[in-house]
């Protein structure tokens, strides 16, 4: 991409975060809450640079250089979010991502190289919530971290419940039940489902969803939406049946229902 097509040039929105976690420290963008970031990146210089940037941002950062180490770090460091390079020695980033997803719903932002297009698709399929392309400025990474965390943070207790067919959504507790059983959704999946189900029957374009769910530019990478829809469908739709909740409107985008 070129001069004007790059994220760095875009203004970044950083809205208020629902609840402050842990300690506040002064970073580049003032009073944002501290986040525990686990950085898994094999190149020591890149890892160090990103770690400096993240620390400056006020985040507690732990750096791991291999996939195995990274997975150990998930247990030991208890991060709020993982920044994951895909090219790792040993267990690669895709596998690390899959294992993290299997274990829980930690937000994952993957680091990719611009010229490895397939990586983005595979990484998203492995369950990553978002991606940034190296070289990346700390400010851009910070914006992504904020956007991903905004999808998950909620301090409100369980409250109003919405029922859509077999699905029960709780917008404050951020839980999703299917036929009474809780479903584990990654942050981006949850946020997408909440965005679509907020207006059942309304069609959202991929651009709109990129803006509202990922805080990406409207003309961004629509594969984020498509990959996330795919993952979400696997979790909430009946297998081998046409999609019921997340329906494709060809040429326009997606809509929730009508049921």
């Amino acid at each position, binding site marked *: 991409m070129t001069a004007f*097509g790059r994220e760095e040039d875009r203004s970044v929105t950083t809205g208020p975060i629902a609840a402050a976690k842990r300690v506040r420290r002064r970073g580049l963008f003032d009073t944002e809450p501290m986040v525990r970031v686990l950085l898994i990146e094999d190149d020591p210089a890149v890892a160090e*640079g990103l770690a400096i940037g993240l620390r400056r941002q006020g985040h507690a950062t732990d750096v791991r250089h291999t996939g195995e180490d990274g997975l150990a770090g998930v247990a030991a460091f208890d991060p709020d979010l993982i920044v994951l390079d895909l090219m790792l020695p040993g267990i690669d980033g895709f596998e690390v991502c899959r294992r993290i997803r299997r274990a829980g719903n930690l937000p994952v932002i993957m680091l990719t190289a611009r*010229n490895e297009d397939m990586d983005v698709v595979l990484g998203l399929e492995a369950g990553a919530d978002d991606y940034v392309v190296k070289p990346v400025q700390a400010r851009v990474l910070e914006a992504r971290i904020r956007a991903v965390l905004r999808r998950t943070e909620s301090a409100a207790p369980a409250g109003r419940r919405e029922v859509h067919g077999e699905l029960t959504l709780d917008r404050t507790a951020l839980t999703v039940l299917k036929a009474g059983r809780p479903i584990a959704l990654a942050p981006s999946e949850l946020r997408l489902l909440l965005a679509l189900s907020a207006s059942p029957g309304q069609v959202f374009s991929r*651009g709109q969803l990129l803006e509202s769910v990922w805080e990406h530019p409207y003309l961004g990478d629509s594969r984020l939406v498509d990959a996330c829809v795919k993952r979400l469908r696997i979790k909430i739709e009946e297998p081998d049946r046409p999609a019921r909740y997340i329906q494709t409107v060809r040429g326009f985008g997606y809509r929730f229902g009508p049921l």
Partner: protein
Amino acid sequence: MTGPLARLRGLRVRLASACLLVAAFAALATAALTYREARTAMLQRAQDSVVRSVRDRVEAVAPSVPFPPDQAALERIVALVDTRGNTDHWIVAAGYRDLWATTDRVLTPDAIPTALRTTADEVTAFQRVEREGVIWLAVGVPVTFAKPLNGVLSGVQVYVLTPMRAQMQEEAALVRAARKGAIPAVLLALVLALVVAGGVLRPVRALQRATRRLAQGRLDTRLQVKGGDELADLARDFNHTAAALEQHEARLRTMEARARGFAADVSHELRTPLAAMAAVINVLDEDAAAEHLDPDTAAALRLVSAETGKLTRLVDDLMEISRFDAGAAALHVDELDVAEAVRRCLAARSWSGAVTTHLPEGIRAEVDPRRFDVVVANLVGNALRHGAPPVEVGLGTERRADGVWIVLRVADRGPGLAADTLHRVFERFYKADSARARSVGSGLGMAITLENVRLHDGHIRAANRSDGGAVFTVELPRYARIEVTEDA
């Protein structure tokens, strides 16, 4: 393409017709000669027999006729000669000076050709005459009287006209026979001529096919060399040329691939250290703004930060170009409202106020949103940076034979582009205003734009407005050639 084809066809036709001409000439000449000989022989025979019998007759009659003959004597001669009782419908006539006797009422002396009459004064002569549509053989015999002239010519002539019906029939049969022989011979010759021409031309045609394949880029094309004639030499030369071309091309390809691979490798290698540096740019920026810092250090920090940013952009652009070169650039199309997309692109860069737009609503197209954004941003960015306001962005559709096309125009009122540099705008690293633009852009923007447009199977043109300023026109097919991104 039809030119050489027509020429080749012409060659075959020419060869065949030459063969045919020779064959036809030979056949016709043979037929004509044969016919002439046969006819002459036949006529000769017929004439000889007629002449002989007439002369015999006349000789037999002559002694009984007095000299000089009177009309009655002539009548007698005629009657005697005619009393042959033959069935040949002879017409007999005899003349002496002004006297004229004939068995046929209508036959006048004028009917006898003068030449014949003159010759028949002295010797037996014959000539063919046409009378009432029938060919007659006219035989003139001078009569010699024993007494009183002692065999001296008397000036009496006897003419016998005999129709040559039988001969004419025979002649017609001869013509028929000649024709019957000549026409199949000529036809056979035509077939043979075509076969021969085809045979001669087969290697020529093979050469032509091979040349065409070569021209299509199939440099492994070779001809089979048969025999040692000129065409075989030609085929051998062709093979050598093709082999040389193939080698040359292979070398060029490896060189090009190496050059491209090198660019890709360089940008790839640069990316890792840049990734480390880019990550800390913001830290430098922040600290450069701090008041306690030495001004030189602050300036140095800002410089490093700014240039790292530029380098990052350059490497980004180079990697994007390498991806196009490697054929690794993929199109992720989505159907979207084009006017909305343009507005979003401008708004995301805070250009909405600086640009006049004409964006009709309701135009939807299948494009790769990210790449479309790059195209619009580069064109409008150039218009703002290299051109001058007012910058206008126009959108429209065009219905063509191959479907509906989206037409996007970005125009400005700046200096425009020098006529001889119009086509160079899309070259890599090309900057028209090189002195001024050194610190501004890399010169890869339009090259990337062009690749992005091409990936959509679209076209882009640069031109100057008649009233000053540059105008860039992008045309994209309304429907992408591949399927819309569709989820399972």
